């Protein structure tokens, strides 16, 4: 028994070390330096209380980053969810070549974000493919390309993100669809319900937990958007998001660790609030059935 206990301890040791060294300690540490004016690698810094937080809430650059992040989240999530659901419904039934379509739809979501962002930088550039398509349908593309214009840059990146993510969430919807028993549809068929009626009274209600799960994980991810902003615009043309702002404040020329940590915690609280709210909704709906 003693032997079992000691080996059980050995088994969990890597996780315990990782947990405390690389998760718990940094999380607490950054919370604390959020209340200091720590900069660069100097040891001289002092406690400033909530000054970083109050300063952030009146910092125009931060507020713009907050706004951009919100636009990103609110703009991409409904579209991603709906398109992913439509794709899942399209490839749910057995037909010839289904595996190819599924695989193709899914492929972008396992590709590196850096690579995707580079490809779309090319597609979105002046005279690029997307400008050409836009002009074919009578829309005048911005003169310097989609990414070099305040009016279109952020939305262009959002469009790319939707394109990239739909295949991934399609797969999660597919596994949700699989768990709906066929008997329900058979019964509906016998009682003469139309396909549309079946979708709204069987498929959609039974998919709600999956849909909420998708919305939760997608919003946690979208609140933290950074890589595509870094690669495509470097935060210019009003595309900086909160994580980009944290990076810029904390790890470029300014090395303003205290201030950047406070910004990170504001985002943390926003994400926590959204997640709890969504879990609450999920709970409420589950009990309603």
């Amino acid at each position: 028994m003693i032997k079992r206990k000691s080996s059980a301890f050995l088994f969990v040791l890597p996780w315990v070390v990782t947990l405390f060294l690389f998760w718990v300690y940094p999380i607490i540490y950054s919370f604390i330096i959020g209340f200091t004016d720590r900069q660069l690698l100097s040891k001289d810094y002092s406690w400033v209380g909530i000054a970083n937080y109050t300063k952030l809430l009146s910092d125009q650059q931060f507020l713009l980053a907050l706004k951009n992040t919100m636009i990103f989240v609110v703009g991409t999530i409904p579209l991603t969810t709906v398109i992913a659901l439509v794709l899942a419904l399209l490839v749910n039934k057995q037909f010839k070549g289904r595996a190819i379509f599924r695989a193709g739809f899914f492929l972008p979501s396992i590709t590196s974000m850096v690579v995707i962002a580079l490809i779309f930088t090319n597609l979105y550039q002046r005279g690029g493919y997307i400008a050409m398509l836009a002009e074919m349908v009578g829309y005048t593309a911005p003169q310097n390309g989609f990414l070099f214009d305040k009016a279109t840059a952020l939305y262009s990146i959002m469009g790319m993100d939707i394109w990239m993510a739909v295949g991934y969430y399609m797969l999660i919807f597919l596994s949700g669809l699989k768990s709906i028993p066929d008997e329900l549809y058979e019964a509906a068929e016998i009682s003469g319900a139309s396909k549309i009626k079946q979708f709204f009274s069987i498929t959609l209600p039974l998919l709600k937990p999956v849909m909420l799960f998708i919305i939760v994980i997608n919003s946690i991810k979208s609140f933290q958007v950074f890589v595509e902003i870094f690669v495509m615009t470097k935060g210019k043309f009003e595309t900086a998001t909160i994580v980009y702002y944290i990076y810029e404040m904390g790890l470029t020329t300014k090395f303003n660790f205290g201030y950047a940590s406070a910004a990170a915690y504001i985002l943390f609280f926003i994400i926590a609030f959204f997640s709890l709210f969504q879990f609450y909704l999920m709970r409420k709906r589950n009990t309603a059935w």
Partner: protein
Amino acid sequence: MVKRIVRYIALSTILLIMIFPLIWMFRISLMSAGESILVKNFVSSSVTFQNYLDLFKQMKMGMYFFNSMLVGLLVTLGNILFCFMTAYSISRYKSLSNKLLFSSVIFILMIPAHILIIPMYLLMVKLGIYDSYFALILPWLVNPIGIFLVKQYIDSLPSSMEEAARIDGAGEFRILFRIVMPLCKPVLAVLAIQIFFTNWNSFLFPFILTQSESIRTLPVALALIQGHQSIDWQHLMAGSSIAVLPVLVIFLFMQRQIVSGITSGGIKQ
């Protein structure tokens, strides 16, 4: 019949939209350097592998590829071993401390990683491993997603074989690696692919925790090449194609494991 044709046309259009950008990447990578990049010349543009040769000869592509592979494989191996050990312990020894550990796994799963950007940088500097392979590997050797995934799987396995081995006098390590691990092969394959992909594609932490070119991983190298001067699309897209290749190959052969990994927990991106 008409309905079927309409469906195939719709699906093929979507498929084209979904894979065209990747095809376009590959097409640009084959054009000769300096050639103008126009979609209408998709077919008539030149076809050459010179860009790939240049990348390996002049642009250290081999080094970036090696770095990415090394880090990716070590992190994957670490996760297979450590997630498995932790998951086994949590699943089989129902002590209070293990219950707490499982709560810690769930809790960390929900922490958004952006909170680590600043403190992880400071920690690496403090530990003296900023800008080294250690910074790229050590923090990610065991991952809450992996523990969760494997724990669920071990929960569903009967423990009768372990009990029998224990009565026969087998030690805990022997039971763990000779009896339970082989049974866990399917879930460990799923885990390995997830971890490798996430790591192979990872940009944020490799970017902020390293500086030297000699340990730069492929995504970081690609993102930083782009920052210089005017963009040399042909070489950039050749580099991107190389970065996509391992993922594509694994995807073609192990689609089922990838799909089951996503539907049973999701990759944290």
